């Protein structure tokens, strides 16, 4: 069972804990596919999304997940809140908590912000992306998608392609995959691959062709235009030419390899439309699985009294 108060990253989770979340997401996915997408499980529980950075899918996905489980969900729009008046993260968190909130879902531009919040509130905290650190539910939904399509994660070789340095998605994927014994290749412009990444147990490549050869999964990362002001890549056009995933490059992977992308996509930059539209692409399904995985996380944190509440 899940004994932690929060979900802050995949780094600290064991393979068994990750498996429990993925196993719980299987029945959750069935609920999403029903005509009546609602179960009463989290009736009377409440969840607030607190996003300091923009998001479409993660925020909506959490809100839908909460609603399908009958939790009450609200979202705090940071740009229209007291944060602009200078209220601190902890004060904002405490304010939300004393309104009776059971779970706070936070996205923040600073790595570690969810951890700081988690230490200072009794409510459970879910990290929905912190700086360049982790994005655990994205990592979980990627793992769920790979496991659902390909089976045992330990047998897989996964290539992660793109801006590794700025990517919390890459980090959460790497933490998760390596715990199951999967082989992970990372590839991208050398300016966007941090040296320390090797210590996470991955193989670094600088040629897309070599990195994707015979892999089971290609996970393409978004070029984060908002984080590209430092001139780390010459131009988007050149990036597309050297690192963009086109049909020819994709064909070097196993014939039935999965093509994944966490979204939002820069079509024609990191991924070409013919690859995005191809049969191997599971980009849309990742979004559906994201709701299922978040339902699982909400259930495990809010369903039952939980060891945390029982002992505190």
């Amino acid at each position, binding site marked *: *069972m899940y004994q932690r108060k929060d979900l802050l990253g995949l780094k600290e989770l064991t393979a068994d804990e990750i498996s429990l979340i993925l196993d719980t997401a299987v029945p*959750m996915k069935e609920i999403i596919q*029903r*005509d009546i997408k609602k179960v009463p*499980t989290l009736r009377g529980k409440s969840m607030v999304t607190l996003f300091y950075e923009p998001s479409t899918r993660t925020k909506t996905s959490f809100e839908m997940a909460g609603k399908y489980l009958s939790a009450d969900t609200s979202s705090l729009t940071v740009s229209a809140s007291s944060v602009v008046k200078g209220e601190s993260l902890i004060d904002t968190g405490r304010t939300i908590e004393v309104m009776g909130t059971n779970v706070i879902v936070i996205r923040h531009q600073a790595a570690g912000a969810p951890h700081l919040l988690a230490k200072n509130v009794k409510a459970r905290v879910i990290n929905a992306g912190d700086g360049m650190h982790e994005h655990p539910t994205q990592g979980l939904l990627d793992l769920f998608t790979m496991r659902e399509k390909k089976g045992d994660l330990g047998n897989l070789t996964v290539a992660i392609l793109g801006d590794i340095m700025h990517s919390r998605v890459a980090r959460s994927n790497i933490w998760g995959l390596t715990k199951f014994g999967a082989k992970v290749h990372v590839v991208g412009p050398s300016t966007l691959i941090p040296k320390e990444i090797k210590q996470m147990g991955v193989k670094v490549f600088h040629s897309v062709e070599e990195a994707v050869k015979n892999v089971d999964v290609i996970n393409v990362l978004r070029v984060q235009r908002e984080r590209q002001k430092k001139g780390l890549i010459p131009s988007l056009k050149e990036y597309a030419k050297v690192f963009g995933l086109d049909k020819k490059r994709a064909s070097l992977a196993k014939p039935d390899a999965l093509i994944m992308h966490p979204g939002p996509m820069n079509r024609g930059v990191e991924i070409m439309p013919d690859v995005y539209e191809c049969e191997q692409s599971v980009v849309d399904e990742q979004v559906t699985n994201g709701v299922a995985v978040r339902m*699982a996380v909400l*259930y495990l944190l809010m369903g*039952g009294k939980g060891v945390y509440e029982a002992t505190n």
Partner: protein
Amino acid sequence: MKNLVAKATIMDEEKIRRALVRIAHEIVEKNKGTDNLALIGIRRRGVPLAERLARIIKEIEGATLPVGILDITLYRDDLTTLAQQPEVHKTEVNFSVINKTIVLVDDVLYTGRTVRAALDAIIDLGRPKSIQLAILVDRGHRELPIRADYVGKNVPTSKREIIEVRLKEIDGKEEVVILETTE
């Protein structure tokens, strides 16, 4: 420290088989055939029982009834008071329940709370014409106004006792036993 002591075996393989054969006949008789009928077993031990009932009905009527699997975890009324979140498993009802006569199957009927949860779970899948309840052992002590339409065996029990149904598919043996908790 609580101990469990086996008191008696109340059904053996043959008794379980006869009870299921009788229930299968009763289901067909009460519904005047098998039209529009479907079976749904409650996880875990209701599932093999529902499958067996479907097999017996096929033998006596020649009709193959759809069998679904219901996991009621998400519908439990004690989720907020349990110390541990129970594991959730998949509900697999691969047919439409709308306008069907559903026979809900479980091993033991006790407080009625599982059945209450199951009724909600089924109705969330659609609006059946009716829902009937088939139970291998009814041990009494209802806490909700629920009763079974088909009962394998009525067993008066005390609340200190526990009824365990063991089935080949899950437990490797076939019996119903009464256990008693002692301090």
